[in-house]
């Protein structure tokens, strides 16, 4: 299994541009997450999904959108990029049954995004 893969690894975006960060997992996990990690800060949850067709906001959803049309893919869309969105973005997934908050999340390697 490749686990959780993210593309691109690095990207520079101009203010006002849009882009999509890709995340794919091949573990048949039902839960998927998007986090951002800023220097000196912990991970902040942007959006999450408990299964195909179901998404919900996390702590910091403004400026982002997601979709989950398949179990494997969970893309993150940035519309009208701003310098405040410069960050490292991590996608994660896990399989959860009756006690979802006990289960281990598996993280991708991250996407380093700079907005200039």
């Amino acid at each position, binding site marked *: 299994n490749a686990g959780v893969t993210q593309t691109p690894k690095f990207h520079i975006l101009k203010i006002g541009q849009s882009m999509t960060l890709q995340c794919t997992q091949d573990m048949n996990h039902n839960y998927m997450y998007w986090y951002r990690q800023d220097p*000196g800060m*912990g991970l902040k949850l942007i959006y*999450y999904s408990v299964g195909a067709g179901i998404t919900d906001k996390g702590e910091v959803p403004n400026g982002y959108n997601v979709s989950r049309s398949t179990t494997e893919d969970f893309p993150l869309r940035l519309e009208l990029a701003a310098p405040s969105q410069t960050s490292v973005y991590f996608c994660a997934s896990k399989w959860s049954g009756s*006690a*979802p*908050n*006990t289960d*281990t999340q598996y*993280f991708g390697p*991250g996407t380093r995004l700079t907005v200039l």
Partner: protein
Amino acid sequence: AQSVTQLDSQVPVFEEAPVELRCNYSSSVSVYLFWYVQYPNQGLQLLLKYLSGSTLVKGINGFEAEFNKSQTSFHLRKPSVHISDTAEYFCAVSTFTGNQFYFGTGTSLTVIP
């Protein structure tokens, strides 16, 4: 709401010395607690987790952590560190209900030869 405080942003320690990385949490309900490690330019991976039962939890790479409910702490320890333990360590908390995990700001462990 839940929150996590990691009291030390940077911890330098000599090789083969013991280390403790501190984590305190705040929650009005019962929690599950996790420690993740992040090596340079990689994603996070789980070191250990406390769900219930014994308050001393053993994880991978010789790490262990102790859950202390009265002090709302979950400190990570290792009796003898190696150069390869140099990494960023994150404490995280979740609850039985809800779908979110809350992460601390991280502790950068540097092992000095």
